């Protein structure tokens, strides 16, 4: 994973604050499963990295979200309470902005070792440890083995080549 240096980020501190809040609403922490939310420091750092490629459109989306917050509630998005913030995001659910943020957030979140362990996956790369796979029930093949060959025979057909 490439290192993320804050000064390299195309996002201002205000924009990062909005993104972090949105990520935390999309995937909140869970006491039930003992896992952090997407606003966790490590996870959010990866979100920022992933969001670099589409920075221009995401920054426009942040501006639009703040404008909508001011229009509806007379304050910028980070200043609203969680109910107000969630309501605005639901209204923007089909926007290109939120779809981009969902993509970055889910991608970062579900590559975090703590999260993967909570869904019975390894917190390590697949290689070199690998995985166990059951052989499965090979007796299911018995009726297929009993079937007569059904590929078409070409014996005695005349070739009509170009």
């Amino acid at each position, binding site marked *: *994973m490439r290192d993320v240096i804050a000064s390299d980020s195309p996002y201002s501190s205000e924009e990062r604050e909005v993104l972090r809040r949105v990520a935390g*609403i*999309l*995937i*909140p922490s*869970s006491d*039930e*499963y003992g*896992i952090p939310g997407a606003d966790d420091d490590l996870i959010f750092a990866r979100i920022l990295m*992933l969001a670099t490629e589409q920075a221009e459109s995401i920054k426009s989306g942040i501006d639009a979200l703040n404008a909508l917050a001011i229009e509806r509630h007379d304050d910028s998005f980070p200043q609203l309470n969680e109910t107000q913030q*969630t309501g605005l995001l639901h209204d923007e*659910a089909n926007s290109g902005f939120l*779809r981009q943020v*969902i*993509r970055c957030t*889910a*991608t970062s*979140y*579900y*590559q975090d*070792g703590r*999260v*993967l362990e909570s*869904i*019975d*996956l390894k917190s*390590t*790369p*697949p*290689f*070199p*440890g*690998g*995985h*166990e*796979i*059951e*052989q*499965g*029930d*090979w007796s*299911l*093949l018995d*009726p*297929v*083995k009993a*079937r*007569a*060959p*059904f*590929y*078409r*025979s*070409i014996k005695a*057909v*005349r*070739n*009509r*080549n*170009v």
Partner: protein
Amino acid sequence: MAEDAVDVLIIGAGASGAAIAWSLVDTRMHIVCLEQGDWMNPSEYPSAHMDWESRATEAFSISPNRRGHATDYPINESNSPIAVANFNAVGGATILYAGHFPRFHPSDFRVRTLDGVADDWPIDYETLAPYYDENDRMMGVSGLAGDPAYPPKPAIMPPLPLGRAGTKLAEGFNAMGWHWWPSDSAIASEPYDGRDKCINLGACTAGCAQGAKASTDITYWPHAIRAGVELRTRCRVREITVRKDGMAGGAIYYDADGVEREIAAEVVIVACNGVGTPRLLLNSKSNLFPDGLANSSGLVGRNLMFHPYSAIRGTFETDLDGAKGPGNCIWSQEFYETDTSRGFVRGFTYEIGRGRGPVNTAVDHMLSGKVAWGENHHRSYRSVVNRITGMVGICEDLPEEHNTVTLDPELKDSDGIPAPRIDYTLSENSRRMLDYSIARATEVLEAAGAIDVQSTAPIPHGGWHLMGTARMGTDPQQSVVNEWGRSHDVKNLFIVDGSIFVTSAGVNPTRTIQALALYVADSMKQRLANLFD
């Protein structure tokens, strides 16, 4: 003036270039292969990293336009519903292929005779059978003998495990009374030829860090190089040169530093795939061949065939394999041979997969609204993760001259070589076949217990198989190469990749591409004394 002269120049070190290089080495000729890509470093493959799902869509994306590596060339595919998937490296697209490794069927070589469409091949299954066998030994194929959908063929290693997903879908196929069989896979299920066995990493299509998947950089190439073939990487060929007598003279290429170089050769073999090969031939214009090399028929770049793919997935109520295990599992060829009552000619193979990774599951389901975001997210996500499996339908694509690879008038690669442009239309026959494949797969999944079935067709980025753009045949006016791969127009020029396919069949093509390459090599060796007559 050429810097060096060789007996045989092979352009492209992928599936077919590797096979023919290895086969020709016993002629003791001086063989050089030019490859525009690099050797791969398995430690860089995504499965060796925590963020393997991200890497698989970035540096190891199947799309050259997405990857944008210096070793890639761009492709204008804006006029095609299916985008090209390829990879440029030693091993070519076998680096990223699934290793799903079916053979063609006997009927695939006789489509005109049997079904009245397209054309028959100038060779048949029996001709290729010994080369299939030889290629199977070189690549190492896992499978199970006795498949009633095929003539008898050997199995070298035991099949890959069914797992939970394969078992579940086998139950579905059995409930419908339909054929299924463990897939032939170019993945080692036990140690083979210096390669270790599969350990179920689950990211086969982004490169196998274990080395169990048979990409040609670890199968054919080590043998070929030890026997004396010279493989030069980061060498991008601009054009094949032509001598005054109309024979191929060699090639002009750019090295890793962008320096133009020339190599002379007595024989030139093109192995650049169904897009790269017509691109190279069309870029090789000369006074003798103003429309591109080997193109007197006007068919270079025409008859492009993909395999239109449908993708059908179901969500189940119990945990399956998730992202664990090789994508290959079982196949079904219940609908392979023509039955006109279905509303289309020819047929398709179902390639059953395992499951999806945690990221892909989350992204797709959150974007579609099937997994909630917010306070219900975690419960909602846990109802689908590791519980999805399904299949793709690999539909036979018939050749149509209006589906083309041409040179884009503006787009160029980093060396200034004109890039290919794809113009492709999905046929009505393909659309009907895709619809049918979705309907029948849905029945299988529901019979297996799926509670939610989703489908896509065609898979927009599923242009893995590139075929037909320099077809073989006996009539020089209707084909580009003859029945053993030699250009009708240029008698020391051979083509061995998927571009020489007459039809596409309804299966993955790599095993047939390689068998054809071995067959062409053998044909050349048998005619060495009069190869150019």
